């Protein structure tokens, strides 16, 4: 089996972290296709997945260009194994029930929207162009997820219970959203990517507002999972990649 690893510079690593999170999250959302609680939501989740997939494609294409090793966006998506993936752990967790899926979307979109908004002013012109499109999409995702979390959190006894369980399960993965290591610092200082510390107040305001309306108590500070952005993943990512990469693994080089 051919497995590739990208030569990591701060920029290529930064792009892969964004692209991998978008792709893996898109895959989890696409698992609802044909299984969502109602037709409208089936369309919604598939459409959101498509937005994220589109963002991932643009980011992979740019990462391949930056690496300049003759690779394509498809090589990066289909030929890297789990330890080469740089996505946030939260994105790879199994889709769970609808409460879990929609709360995860809220937590990630509430970070994506201010992130892409700030990145649309990046000194890197390609990244700024990708960001300007992604920001509009993230704003729509945030709004959709927020409305659902409020309805379910403040809904029936059962929907409220499920939302509280989802929140307890997802909260320990929120720390990773605001991490910044040496590679991130280099990009922040070069004006390429925004500083996650600057995004945190906007994220806090968005999720706190939804939690207040949803009647959800914000979890206490706790120990946070970490590692996805450095290639240390949960056992779930390998299974996801086995499904997503199956065709290229079974028929190497197959084209559409």
């Amino acid at each position: 089996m051919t497995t590739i690893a990208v030569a990591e510079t701060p920029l290529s690593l930064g792009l892969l972290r964004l692209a991998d999170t978008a792709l893996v999250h898109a895959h989890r959302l696409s698992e609802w296709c044909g299984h969502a609680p109602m037709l409208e939501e089936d369309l919604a989740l598939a459409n959101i997945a498509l937005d994220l997939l589109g963002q991932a494609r643009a980011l992979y294409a740019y990462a391949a260009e930056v690496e300049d090793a003759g690779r394509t966006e498809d090589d990066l998506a289909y030929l890297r194994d789990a330890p080469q993936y740089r996505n946030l752990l939260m994105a790879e967790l199994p889709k769970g029930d609808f409460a879990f899926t929609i709360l995860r979307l809220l937590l990630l979109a509430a970070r994506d929207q201010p992130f892409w908004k700030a990145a649309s002013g990046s000194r890197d012109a390609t990244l700024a162009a990708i960001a300007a499109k992604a920001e509009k999409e993230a704003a729509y995702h945030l709004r959709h997820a927020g409305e659902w979390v409020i309805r379910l959190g403040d809904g029936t006894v059962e929907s409220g219970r499920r939302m509280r369980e989802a929140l307890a399960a997802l909260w320990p993965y929120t720390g990773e959203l605001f991490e910044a290591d040496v590679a991130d610092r280099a990009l922040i200082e070069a004006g390429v990517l925004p500083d996650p510390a600057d995004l945190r107040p906007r994220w806090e305001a968005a999720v706190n507002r939804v939690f207040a309306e949803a009647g959800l108590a914000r979890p206490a500070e706790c120990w946070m999972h970490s590692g996805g952005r450095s290639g240390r993943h949960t056992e779930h990512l390998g299974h996801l990649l086995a499904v997503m990469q199956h065709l290229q693994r079974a028929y190497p080089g197959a084209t559409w």
Partner: protein
Amino acid sequence: MVTVTEHEHLLAAARAAAGRVVDPEIPALSITDLGVLRDVRLGADGVVEIDITPTYSGCPAMRLIAHEIEAVVEAAGLGRPRVKLVLAPAWTTDWITPAGREALRRSGIAPPAPGGGRRALFGADEAIICPHCGASDTEKLSEFGSTACKALWRCRSCGEPFDYFKCH
């Protein structure tokens, strides 16, 4: 030697041919009307270069649109063009032409509210006019519709559901 006038004729022909390509998901709408066709120019090597921009990042129609542009420009005797996907500036529904808005309405799709732009997390919904009967007493059924660029609405007056081209 290619004169300035020949140059202009060639570009005008290429622009006309490419501009007639339609959105495969909304065949009533050309890529000119949709604002997806961004630029037509002549490269240094004399090859026609055409820029298109996606409506949404994941718009699955872009590849087909690029192929069709290549086919029609070549069929018009102008050679095989280079079609490039550009992301900046980001596409907005404000680029849909008045003719495009009318074509949408005739196909039963409510055009986006002009200049509506971004909405906040709890932003209020705009008033959307039913493309079937023209009534303004409409309601949103779902924020997402049959394609990435549309939402699903219903008219309380005539009772018909309809697609709304999301403001973006």
